[in-house]
C-alpha cells in the first residue's frame, strides 16, 4: 500500500510545476499507469481524494489511463500482450516493452 506516498510525490511535483508556470490552481490531471507498475489505480484515486483537498490540486479532475503489458520480439518487432516465452516466428526471447509506466502525462492549470 504505497499509493499514498506515490500520490504525495505526484502532488508535490504538480505543485512545483504549477508554481513555476504561475498557475493558481490545477483543474485536470492525467496519469499513465502501467499494468505492472505495482500500483493499484483504485487506491491511487482514493489517495488523491484523501490528500488533494489541502493542495493546489483541490477539486481537480483525475484521469488515470492504464497501460497494458506488452511484449516485443527484438528480432521482428512483433508485439503481443500474451506472456509467450519465445517469438513463434524467430524463436528468440520476447522483451517486456510497456506496462511498467508511472507517469504524469499532462495537467491543466489556471
Amino acid at each position, binding site marked *: 500500500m*504505497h499509493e499514498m506516498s506515490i500520490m504525495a510525490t505526484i502532488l508535490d511535483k504538480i505543485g512545483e510545476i504549477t508554481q513555476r508556470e504561475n498557475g493558481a490552481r490545477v483543474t485536470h490531471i492525467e496519469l499513465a499507469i502501467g499494468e505492472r507498475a505495482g500500483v493499484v489505480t483504485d487506491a491511487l484515486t482514493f489517495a488523491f481524494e484523501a490528500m488533494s483537498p489541502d493542495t493546489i490540486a483541490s477539486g481537480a479532475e483525475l484521469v488515470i489511463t492504464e497501460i497494458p503489458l506488452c511484449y516485443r520480439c527484438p528480432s521482428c518487432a512483433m508485439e503481443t500482450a500474451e506472456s509467450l516465452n519465445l517469438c513463434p516466428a524467430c524463436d528468440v*526471447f520476447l522483451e517486456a516493452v510497456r506496462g511498467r509506466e508511472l507517469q504524469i502525462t499532462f495537467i491543466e492549470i489556471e
Partner: protein
Amino acid sequence: MCDSCGCHPDDSNHGRQISLGQDILSLNNEIAGHTRQHLQEAGIFCLNIISAPGSGKTALLEGLGRYGKELAMAVIVGDQQTDNDQKRLQGAGLNAVQINTGAACHLDARMVHGAMHDLDLSTTRLLIIENIGNMVCPTAYDLGEDLRVAVVSTPEGEDKPAKYPDLILSSDVLLINKVDLLPHVNFNMDECCRQARRLKPGLEIFPVSATTGEGMAEFWQWLMGKCQSKG
C-alpha cells in the same frame, strides 16, 4: 474565443494544458542513479533482495556470509520495526545496518542512500540490500542495485511467481529457498520454474537451502561471475 467560457485563449484565467510525460518516481530514480554511479566508481557490486516475509532472506545472507570473506560483504536490511535482523547478520560476521521504515512498505533510494553513510564501505566489494518483506511495493523502487534478486520458498507454493508477477518481471534471478523441506511440502519445482520463465523468459533460477547450504555454492559462483563481468 473559447467555446466553454467565451474567454480569449491568451486570457490568464483560461486553463492551460501542460504536457509533462514526467516519471512520477524520477526523484527516486535520480537518487538511485547517483548511488549506482558511486558504487560503480568504488568498485562495489550491489544486490537488492525482495521476497515475502519469512522466505528466508536473512538466512540466505547469513549463509552467503560463509563465502567470499575477502569481499567484506555489507548489508543494508529493512524492516518495519526492530533491529533483530541487523543483530543476526552482525552475529554472522557481516557489516550490517538496519533501516526501520515505520509505516512504509518498501525501501526507497533515499533511505538506502542515507544508510550507506552509516556503513564503512572502504573495503566492501559486495553490498546487499535486504528489502522489506513484501512482494509488491518494493518492485517499483530502483535502489541503485546492479542485480535484483527475487526469493520464494517451497512452503509458499509453486504458484508464487504467477501470483506476484511484478517481482518476477523486474528481477534478474530467482532463488527458490527451503528445498530441504521438499519432502514435507506440496511444491512442484518444474511448475514453479515454468511459471516464472513464462513471465520472464531466460530468468536465472537457483533452488537453494539456506539451512543446509544446498545450491548455495552454485548461486555464489554465478554471482561472482556477474561481479567480475561488471569489472
